[in-house]
C-alpha cells in the first residue's frame, strides 16, 4: 500500500547480558499507515520500548537488531549509517517520551530548542523558524506563544512541556510520530487535553502514530489499531473495537479484566496469576503458558503462530486456533 508509513517485518532484537544473547523481540511484524494510530500495549518488560528503540536506531550498546527489516516510507532503515539515520530522525520521524523534562535542555530557551530542528532539517532562516515555531505553539494550544518562546523548561508545568515537545516534533511535519508513554506522567485532566491534541494533529497532518502505553483506557481512546505484546511476541493484533469487544487471547482478556473500570459496578479484583517472565528465562512453547488458565501440553511444546480470525484480527494462541478449526 502506498500510504504505508512504517513497515516492520520479522524484527528480532537481542540483548547481551553477561556475555550471553537473549532475544527481547521475537519476530514481530506490523505496519502503520497514514492518519493511523497504532497502539502497542503490554506490561513492563514486554518489549514495547525496545521495539521503538529498534525503529529509531537508538538501541543501547548491548542491544542489536539481529534480523528483519524496518522500512520508513519504503526506505530501509537497518544498515543506514548513523549520519543518514540522523537525517531521518527528526525530519521523517519524531519522538515524544514519557518525561518531557529529560528531553528538553534545561539551559536553553524553549524558542531556541523549537527553532533548532527547523533550521537544521528544513533549512529555514532564523526569522522563518521563529514564525513557524510560534505558529505551532499556537496550534498545540499554548496561549501567549511569543512569551513562552523566551522561557526555560523549568518555568513550565508538565502538561505545557509535553505540549512543547509535541509542537517541536510536529513542526518538522514527520511522517511518523513515535510516542512512548507520552501521557503517563500527566494528571488525567491534562492527559485528556494532550490526547485530544495528538488526535487533531494526526488528522490535520496525516501522520502515522506509534503509541506506546500500558494504560488500556488510553488505548481505547486514541488507537485505531492495537498490538498486544507479551514477553517479546505479538499475541494479538486487531482494530481497537475487535480488541476491546472481542478479545481472543487469554492474556488480552486478563489484561482487560485487571483494569479497575470507573464505569462498571461489578468489578472484582481479578489479577493474572503468576509473574511476568524475565527475558533471561527460558520458556518452551507459548511464553504465556505458565500463567495461562487454559494451557495444554501443546502450549508447552509448540510456539503458536499468529493467525487471522477476522479481517485484520490476528491472534497467536493454540486454544483460539483449535476452537476456530
Amino acid at each position, binding site marked *: 500500500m502506498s500510504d504505508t508509513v512504517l513497515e516492520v517485518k520479522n524484527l528480532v532484537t537481542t540483548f547481551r547480558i553477561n556475555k550471553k544473547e537473549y532475544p527481547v523481540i521475537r519476530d514481530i511484524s506490523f505496519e502503520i499507515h497514514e492518519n493511523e494510530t497504532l497502539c502497542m500495549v503490554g*506490561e513492563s518488560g514486554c518489549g514495547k520500548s525496545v521495539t521503538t528503540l529498534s525503529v529509531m536506531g537508538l538501541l543501547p550498546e548491548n542491544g542489536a537488531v539481529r534480523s528483519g527489516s524496518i522500512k520508513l516510507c519504503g526506505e530501509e532503515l537497518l544498515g543506514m549509517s548513523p549520519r543518514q539515520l540522523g537525517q531521518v530522525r527528526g525530519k521523517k520521524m519524531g519522538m515524544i517520551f514519557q518525561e518531557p523534562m529529560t528531553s528538553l535542555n534545561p539551559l536553553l530557551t524553549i524558542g531556541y530548542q523549537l527553532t533548532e530542528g527547523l533550521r537544521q532539517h528544513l533549512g529555514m532562516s532564523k526569522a522563518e523558524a521563529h514564525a513557524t515555531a510560534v505558529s505551532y505553539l499556537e496550534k498545540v494550544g499554548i496561549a501567549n506563544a511569543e512569551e513562552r518562546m523566551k522561557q526555560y523548561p523549568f518555568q513550565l508545568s508538565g502538561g505545557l512541556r509535553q505540549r512543547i515537545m509535541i509542537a517541536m516534533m510536529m513542526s518538522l511535519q514527520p511522517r511518523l510520530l513515535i510516542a512512548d508513554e507520552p501521557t503517563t506522567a500527566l*494528571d*488525567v485532566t491534562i492527559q485528556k487535553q494532550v490526547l485530544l491534541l495528538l488526535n487533531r494533529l494526526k488528522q490535520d497532518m496525516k501522520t502515522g502514530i506509534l503509541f506506546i502505553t500500558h494504560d488500556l483506557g488510553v*488505548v481505547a481512546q486514541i488507537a485505531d489499531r492495537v498490538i498486544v505484546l507479551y514477553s517479546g511476541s505479538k499475541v494479538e493484533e486487531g482494530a481497537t473495537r475487535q480488541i476491546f469487544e472481542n478479545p481472543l487471547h487469554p492474556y488480552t482478556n486478563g489484561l482487560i479484566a485487571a483494569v479497575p473500570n470507573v464505569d462498571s459496578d461489578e468489578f472484582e479484583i481479578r489479577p493474572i496469576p503468576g509473574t511476568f517472565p524475565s527475558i533471561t528465562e527460558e520458556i518452551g512453547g507459548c511464553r504465556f503458558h505458565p500463567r495461562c488458565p487454559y494451557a495444554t501440553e501443546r502450549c508447552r511444546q509448540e510456539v503458536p503462530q499468529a493467525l487471522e480470525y477476522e479481517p485484520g484480527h490476528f491472534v497467536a494462541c493454540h486454544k483460539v486456533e483449535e476452537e476456530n478449526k
Partner: protein
Amino acid sequence: MSDQKQVLLELNKLKKYFPVRKGVNLKAVEDISLKIYEGEKFGVVGESGCGKSTLGRVILQLYPQTSGACVYYGKSLEEVSPAYVAKEIAHLTQYQQKAKEFYQKSLEIDRKIAELNTRLDALSAQGTDREVKAHWKLSKEIAELEYRSHELRKDASRQLREGSRTAGSLILCENIAEIQQLFQKALECSLKAREAQEQYDRSDARYGEALVEGQADAQAEKELEEYGTQAAQYRAEARKWREQAFSFRGKNIQMITERCGDPEYWDKLDRNYETGINLGKLSPSELRALRRDMQMIFQDPAASLDPRQSIGKAIEEVFDIHTDYGPQLKKEKTLELLDRVGLKAEQYDSYPHQLSGGQKQRVGIARAIALNPKFVVLDESVSALDVSVQAQILQLLDELRDQQGLTYFFITHNLGVVKHFCDRVMVMYLGNLCELSPSHALFDKPLHPYTRSLFDAVPRPAVRDGLDASGVLEGEVPSAVNPPKGCPFHTRCPHCTDRCKTEKPAIREVAPGHLVACHLYD
C-alpha cells in the same frame, strides 16, 4: 458486635504550610477535618500537587502540622501516657485560677461600664457642644470596655476548655487541687503499668526465642506471669484513682463564670475530655514508639529498599528497631511474613534486584505490617505497577485487612482503583476538601464540578466513536503559593459565578455522609 463504627483517627482543621521564603507559604493542606473509622479503606484522590501526599505524611507526623490537631484513638491515652499529659495535669489548677482571674476582671469592667452608663444617661439630657463631645467620648469608652469584657469572658472559657481536655467538667470543681492529685496518682500508676508492659514484652521476646529453639524458658515464663499481673494491677489501680476523681463530677461546683451552674455546660466540657492521643504533642521518642501502630507503604518499593541488603534482613530490621526479638524469633516471624504476603521462603536471601516490581512492593507491605499496625498510609502504592500486578497487590491488601483488621489511608490518582478498593473517598483540590462521600455514592452521583470533570477525564477501556471532548478542563492547577481567592477551583470551573470568586464555599452535608464544598449546593 455493635454497628457503631469506632473512630480511629480524627483530624481537626489540619493545616500544613511550607515556607517558601519570608512571608510566603505554600499552602499544601488547608483546614481538613474528618474522621477515619477502624477497618476502613479511606481513599484520597486528586491531581498532583493537591496535597494528598502531604496530608498522609502530616497524619503520620512525618511533617509537623502547622495548626490543627490529629488525634489517634487506636491506643488509649492511659496506655501511652505521653509526657504532655503530666504537664497538662500539673497545669489544671492554673487553668482554673486563670479562668477565675479573667472572669473577675471582666466583672470589674462590667461594674465600670454600669457606672459610666449612669454618667452617660445624665449627660444626654443636656445638649451643648461640649456635652455632645463628652457624650461621644464616653460612649466610645463604654464600647471599648464592653469589647474588653467580652474578650476576657472568652479567655476565661478558653482556659476552662483547655483544662477540660484533661479533666472534663471536673475543672469546675472547688477541690481541683485534690482532683489534680488523684489524676497524678492515676498517671503514676499508668506509667508503672507501661513499664511492666515493656518488661512483659521483653520477656515475651525471650520466651518466644526459646520456643523456636525447641525448649521452654521457665524463667521467662515465670516473668511473663509476674509482669502480666503487675501491669494489670497497676492498670486497675490507675482506673480506681481516676474513678475516684470523677466521683466529684457535678459536686462542689464553683461559679467560675455565669454558665458554670448549667448541667448542659458540664456535658459540653465532658465531651472535651480527651481519650485519644494528640499526635502533634508527642515527643520524638513517644512518636517513634507509636510508629508500630502507624505505618506507610510508598510508591516506589525499590527506593525504600537497600540494594545491598537481603530481603530477609530488610524485614528483620523492623524488629531490630521496635522489639527485643532474638535472631531465631526474628527469622521465624520474617518467614511467616513472607508467606503472608505471597513471597517464597527462598526469597529470604534474595536481594532487591532479583525481584520484580510487584514482589518488591510485597516486601514493602511485609515491612509495614510486621508489627501488626492499626493504620497504614499507602501513598500511590500500586501506581507504579502493571495492571495485572496491581490487581494482585490490591487483592493482597484486602486479605490482610480482613486478617489483621487494618485501616488504610489510600492515596492515589487512579479513580478506577479508588472506586473498587475504597469504602469512602475524599477528593482534594489545592489542599482543600472538595467532596467526601462513600465511594458508591460518589461514583453514582458526583456533585462537585471538579469531581465530575475528573471522572470525565478518566480514559475508559471501552471503545467509543472518536475521542469525546466534553468535560475537558481548561488550564492547569494554580499554584498553592498563591491560591485563587474564593473557591480554589473557580479559575477552571464551568459553573463559576461572581460569588465563587469572592467567597470560599463551606463544606455541607448534602446527603448522609456526602460532604461537598461548592456554592451550587447552598
